[in-house]
């Protein structure tokens, strides 16, 4: 078994504590994340999923509890939080809004430059990262503001990848993209995970997005992880998921309806491909 790379120990977080606006965003969360896992964090708006992942690289400090990265408490006084941020890379929602440099290439270089790497290494990293996200080379020297939405997003993701983090967190990487752009980005993330074997945490409110790619799903609701397991395990609770304002993938509904209608199908299928095979198997 791989080692735990991140451990959350009874972490709670409150916004504006002690005022009329106090909101408990995280409520006593304990989790462990293993090296090399591909995790999906799911929850509807306001469930605490974004707050949760921002704890993982120390951008938000928990009001209670501890977080350990590779066995070290990140709230220790002499812990280097800047180093942690290069180890746990974070791609925010609409990452294209963070682009600021005159060229795409320089913008991707920004992270490695802050890491204090020498110029040669910075350039090498930027090339690698831009290659990974599949941005065509003719855009490298263009202004980031001239790119299309999907290209901007790729460039922004490259900006985080260039730091070569051990853990990559992506907060709603497909928000605002068309279905093709969505599949492209998710496919790219999945390929990258396979190639580099790094830990990836994908935050989303869409089950469909996540089901096809991840090994493990954590479902957040009112600041707590409600379900935690493989997609198949989690989707068996599709009735409870619905009560939380989330939907299981459409195939889960189809398979359950087929079963209710008297067909002896395996309802654990999460992708269209699996569903097809399950139906064919039951017809034999």
């Amino acid at each position, binding site marked *: 078994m791989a080692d735990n790379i991140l451990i959350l120990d009874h972490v709670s977080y409150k916004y504006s504590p002690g005022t*009329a606006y106090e909101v408990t965003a995280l409520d006593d969360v304990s989790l462990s994340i293993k090296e090399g896992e591909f995790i999906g964090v799911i929850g509807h708006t306001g469930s605490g999923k974004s707050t949760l992942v*921002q704890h993982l*690289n120390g951008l938000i400090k928990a009001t209670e509890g501890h977080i350990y990265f590779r066995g070290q408490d990140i709230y220790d006084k002499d812990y280097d939080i*800047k180093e942690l*941020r290069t180890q746990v890379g974070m791609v925010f929602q609409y990452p294209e*809004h*963070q682009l*600021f440099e005159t060229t795409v290439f320089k913008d991707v270089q920004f992270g490695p430059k*802050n890491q204090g790497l020498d110029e040669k290494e910075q350039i090498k990293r930027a090339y690698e990262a831009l290659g990974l996200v599949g941005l065509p080379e003719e855009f490298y020297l263009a202004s980031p*503001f001239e790119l299309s939405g999907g290209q901007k997003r790729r460039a922004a993701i490259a900006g985080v990848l260039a730091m070569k983090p051990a853990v990559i967190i992506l907060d709603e990487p497909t928000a605002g993209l068309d279905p093709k752009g969505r599949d492209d980005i998710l496919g790219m993330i999945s390929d990258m995970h396979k190639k580099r074997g790094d830990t990836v945490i994908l935050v989303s409110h869409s089950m469909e997005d996540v089901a096809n790619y991840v090994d493990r799903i954590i479902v957040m609701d009112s600041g707590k992880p409600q379900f935690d397991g493989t997609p198949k395990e989690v989707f068996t609770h599709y009735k409870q998921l619905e009560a939380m304002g989330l939907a299981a993938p459409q195939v889960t509904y189809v398979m359950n309806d087929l079963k209710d209608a008297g067909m002896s199908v395996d309802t654990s299928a999460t992708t269209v491909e699996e569903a097809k095979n399950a139906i064919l198997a039951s017809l034999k």
Partner: protein
Amino acid sequence: MLRDITLGQYYPANSVLHSLDPRVKLFGTLIFIITLFSASNVILFAAVICVLIGIIKLSHVPFSFMVKGLRSIVVLLIIAGLFNLFLTPGKTLVSFWIFSISDVGLKNAVLMTSRMILLIIGTSIMTLTTTPNQLTDGLEKSLGFMKKAGVPVHEISMMMSIALRFIPILIEETDKIMKAQMARGADFESGGLIKKAKNMVPLLVPLFVSAFRRANDLSFAMEARCYNGGEGRTKMRPLKYTSLDQRAYICIAIYLIVFYSAKVIL
């Protein structure tokens, strides 16, 4: 971090003051300021303080919120107080080294600082009990007479409400971009002044870009819904006086009359 900044600092509660028409509150605040600065002796001053305490009680806003507004002007208060204390000529009470405190100076210093404190508390009650939108609505209605003089009152109040509406959005945006750049190893805290200013570039460029994008989107959205200025425009929730507002006006009038007759008599 940035989330904790409050501007326009509305405090939601259910009180008489919250349900008053903003025009009444604007008028009442104006009267309060006038009487505060024309209170020339201890009795009148005490009366103003009593009225203010009553209003604070009515507002259901914790007193600590009003004091918060004072924190930003502490330096100003101290400077104004000290200048009045030491630099006013009059009968010398105490003197040491090159400083001397006169009776008039002491009186002025106390009066000046307490007036400023009361002024801030009094006006902050208005902003704490009135949402920014109500406030601009009230201002637009109250200043409507200036339209005749060619002042674009509606346009100014529209700009004000849009600006107010955008403050929390831009604060949130700043917070987000700051976090995103920090996640890429940007450092906004350490270094000298020039280095700090340079480090702001990754924050300011995206912020400006997004501010312009939002402004552009908003103007399109407004035009798409046929907005063309204040001419002939009606409101979904027009300000209407209720019996509560009438009673409040009567209270203010009584206060004004009693205050000035007391001033003449005393």
